[in-house]
């Protein structure tokens, strides 16, 4: 199933634009196809954004409300009541950084993991490269993240101006960290989506697994608070590195181990490539089993 011109060797010379076959090569991503449908990706993102705030009073302001409330709750619960240390940083900016990053990752993961089920109606009636759908989820969430990140930057500038936080040059790593988050959420989400297709149980695991995962990621506490033996376990989680590096760059406190970053990149790359391969394998026949 590729749109690449396929020339058959042999006596008769025939040129076909497309060959539909049962078996597909492992990494036949038909990128040309994907590129052709790039407008669709943009339109999907636009659709998600518009349908999000249609018929609401506050419109896109809703994007702010969730992180603000989550930050307030965390500040009260973990900061004031449980009195967890936050490396001497201001509570608000510490929690907000974690909440915004985690929000992007978990939204991407949970939305991609149900991509086949949510779109089976559409996928069953028309062909377009299925990869467009998870990609559009990543980008849609990026728009949402952008809005929330602007909120974070506002708070960040406030604390910067009163001298409570000390950002450093590691801040420049943030685009890479963002890319890692997107790739991790997308890759893992695609693996799960491919499997939930057959084994529905997984979708239940995802919904509470994501919640539990947040607690093994230093969102409500700094990694430095964890005892040494648990620290090693927490560091197996690639999100730990991403959040810690983000905090180190913006707030000046956090771990910034190069080996950890390398490990995180490797895990992400494996999950991302694996996700794409599995997704591709499943996409062509999933409609028969869903």
């Amino acid at each position, binding site marked *: 199933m590729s749109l690449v011109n396929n020339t058959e060797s042999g006596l008769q010379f025939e040129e076909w634009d*497309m*060959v*539909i076959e049962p078996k597909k090569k492992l990494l036949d991503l038909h990128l040309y196809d994907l590129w052709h449908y790039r*407008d669709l990706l943009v339109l999907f993102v636009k659709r998600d954004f518009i349908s999000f705030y249609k018929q609401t009073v506050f419109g896109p302001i809703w994007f702010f409300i969730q992180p603000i409330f989550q930050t307030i709750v965390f500040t009260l619960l973990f900061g004031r009541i449980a009195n967890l240390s936050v490396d001497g940083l201001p509570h608000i900016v510490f929690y907000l950084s974690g909440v915004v990053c985690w929000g992007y990752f978990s939204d991407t993961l949970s939305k991609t993991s149900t991509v086949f089920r949510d779109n089976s109606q*559409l996928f069953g*009636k028309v062909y377009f490269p299925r990869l467009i759908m998870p990609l559009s989820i990543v980008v849609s969430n990026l728009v949402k993240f952008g809005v929330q990140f602007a909120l974070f930057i506002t708070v960040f500038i406030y604390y910067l101006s009163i001298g409570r936080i000390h950002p450093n040059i590691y801040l420049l790593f943030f685009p890479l960290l963002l890319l890692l988050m997107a790739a991790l959420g997308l890759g893992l989400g695609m693996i799960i989506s491919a499997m939930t297709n057959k*084994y529905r149980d997984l979708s239940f695991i995802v919904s509470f697994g994501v919640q539990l995962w947040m607690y093994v990621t230093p969102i409500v506490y700094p990694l430095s608070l964890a005892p040494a033996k648990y620290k090693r376990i927490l560091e197996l989680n690639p999100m730990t590195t991403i959040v810690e590096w983000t905090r180190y760059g913006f707030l000046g406190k956090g771990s910034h181990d190069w080996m950890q970053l390398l490990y995180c990149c490797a895990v992400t790359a494996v999950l991302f490539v694996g996700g794409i391969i599995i997704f591709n394998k499943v996409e062509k026949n999933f409609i028969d089993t869903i």
Partner: protein
Amino acid sequence: MSIVIRAENISKMYQLGQIGTGTLSRDIERFVAKMRGKEDPFLKIGQTNDRTQAGDSDIVWSLKDINFEVSEGDAVGIIGKNGAGKSTLLKILSRITSPTTGKIKIKGRVASLLEVGTGFHPELSGKENIYLNGAILGMRKAEIKRKFDEIVSFAGVERYIDTPVKRYSSGMYVRLAFAVAAHLDSEILIVDEVLAVGDFEFQSKCLGKMSEVSQKQGRTVLFVSHNMDAISVLCNKCMLLKNGMMIDQGPKDSIIKQYLERSDKGGSKGLVFIDGKEIKEYTDKMGNHDSFELLSVEMTDDKSVRRNTFYSDEIIQVKCKFNACDHYSDFRIVVFIKDRGTGHTIILSQLSDSECYNHVLAPGVYESVCRIPPNLLTTREYKIDFFFYHTNRFNISLADAFYINIKFRDAKYLNASFEDSALLRPYFDWSINHIE
């Protein structure tokens, strides 16, 4: 003419029953078998896809060894009964699912329209949906922009273009959706039975657009329909599928004729009475039908003699015996008298037209009799379909039950060329007066 589609040995296997349960153990078993180089233990072959027979394996071949070629500019009609594999074939051609075996080679861009309005989002305006739907069907943004005005005027929704489509009437919705699809710039167009929606005017507009696409623009069209009229207007070639197998392919007339003959199960046997097991073969049940059991249907003259050939001045009685297993409050029987050739409904008659309708039926066995008055039908072959319906309970249709032949007793006044054009030949009240 060059070949634009070549299908080689296309087969598609489906697994019946519940796929969600027990598949993990089954997958492991299958995997082990594969590892040891054995055949897939669940893939039994030789089962054809016949709905009416319970197979002994839960694997069916919904398509089996389909081979065909389509030349550039052909309009090919794909015909066959429900479950013949038409839609599966279209799904494979439009890359929604892949074949289990075989290969299809295609030259040119394919646009498929299996459903009208796929991907329409109710909250978005008509304009936004045109762009979204166009992109889903494979158009680039610039392309949609270029054709935007044309699409809007074809759909006739200029006034509402900035209104969310959830506020549209269903007719407007369908018109807009078809308009987008109709303006696709592809070399090959695949259309499933989507014309069943929309009013008559819109349907003929769609058909007109499709024949323009195939005849004037010379594009290749593959079209599935149960409407032989539409097929014969639009197509020049046909493929006939049955139980997933290709029965025949060729010029439209011979294939359509073959299809009609094959589907004339009752007619060729001259059936006038159906009961018991045979009823099941004819009925197509939907919804919960536990509360209704159809016992028999028969066709008789007014002396209760079963026949299927009548003189035009005779009364025809159509009787149904059924078992009502519950109290019925809104129960209807509908009798359709259709033209055998085209399948068009000529007459529709409902139980609710009569006084019987007001009765609440208590459980028990009933017989309904519908009397078709004399001097109404003409020298044609008709077929009779039934429909049994109860609000929110069941919905049962019995298609192609009977065929009726009508003869005139005194044919000397008839002029064949006039009579053939008429669908009905009722006796009206005529008078002729000498006035000057």
